């Protein structure tokens, strides 16, 4: 079977950050002092370990995850969640980037996703790298790794809703199929 348990964000590893520490970071990231961190402000604040900008699709995904008011940005309260989310991912990335290259190669990706509970074919890992590796190195940088996991999670969550007996197979009507895919993409 392709999946056992859904990936869940790891338990809180870090002690909660000091409020004033977080506020300092927030102010530095909120360049125009609007009180809301926009996509572009967050993108500028994040590093993917290369000299290229952080994947804007990943930034969008993260902001929309925590933006409770549909304002295309996060306020200070929501930012606490963003900060924790990114820090958790940094820890995961460091854990699986075993050779400390700053990139996760196919084998390291296999270990990471297997660790999250996925059971995917070797060929599928090739597809994932091919799809998400924006740097064209055959490995994924930090931002692309996050994006890969987000999409895979979304895909699996939606698939699972239709796979009632959890055997990895679904039988769907045409419209169910449309609905399924439009919910993922």
């Amino acid at each position: 079977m392709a999946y056992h348990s859904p990936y869940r964000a790891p338990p809180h590893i870090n002690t909660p950050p000091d409020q004033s520490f977080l506020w300092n970071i927030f102010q530095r990231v909120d360049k125009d002092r609007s009180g809301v961190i926009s996509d572009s402000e967050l993108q500028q604040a994040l590093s993917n370990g290369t000299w290229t900008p952080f994947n804007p699709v990943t930034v969008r995904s993260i902001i929309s995850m925590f933006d409770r008011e549909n304002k295309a940005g996060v306020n200070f309260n929501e930012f606490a969640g963003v900060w924790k989310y990114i820090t958790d991912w940094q820890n995961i990335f460091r854990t699986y980037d075993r050779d400390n290259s700053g990139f996760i190669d196919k084998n390291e990706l296999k270990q990471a996703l297997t660790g999250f509970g996925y059971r995917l074919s070797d060929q599928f890992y090739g597809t994932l790298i091919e799809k998400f590796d924006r740097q064209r190195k055959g490995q994924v940088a930090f931002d692309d790794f996050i994006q890969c996991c987000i999409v895979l999670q979304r895909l699996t969550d939606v698939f699972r809703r239709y796979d009632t007996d959890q055997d990895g197979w679904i039988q769907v009507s045409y419209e169910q199929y449309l609905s399924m895919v439009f919910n993922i993409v």
Partner: protein
Amino acid sequence: MISPLENEWMNSLSFLFYFIFLFNPAFNIDTCRLMINMLDRDMSGTMGFTEFKDLWQALNAWKNIFMSFDRDRSGTVEAQEMQQAIKSLGYNLSPNALNMIMKRYSVNGRIPFDDFVSCCVRLRGLTDHFQRRDTSRNGTANFHYDDVSAYILCMHVSAIA
């Protein structure tokens, strides 16, 4: 390092972009990639002339339908009009399905041309894919996680802006 196949693909990509931008400079890169993925029927990563011709004809059909609804030339149509447009393209979808699509694509009740095309491309590809799987022609198809995931990733997901 860029493989010869990738190089060829990139050349096809530029070629196609040139034509698509002639067609509508407002197309974003996502929509272009989607079109190329979708119409690369033989999965070669390149587009042959037949595939290109198919795309061009489809784009024209979608443009004409869109324009017939966008009477004020705003570059957007109303959600209701998009539903009618989809019907007139030959898709016999239930009100539920049409609603689902509207929710997915409309912003403040309107859909811009670019997103309309993106939706049409997806509908075309998904319908094609489903029909190929519905071998007993009873309106249902079976999918395994591995291969439907790979299909969606290859055809429908844009990881890059």
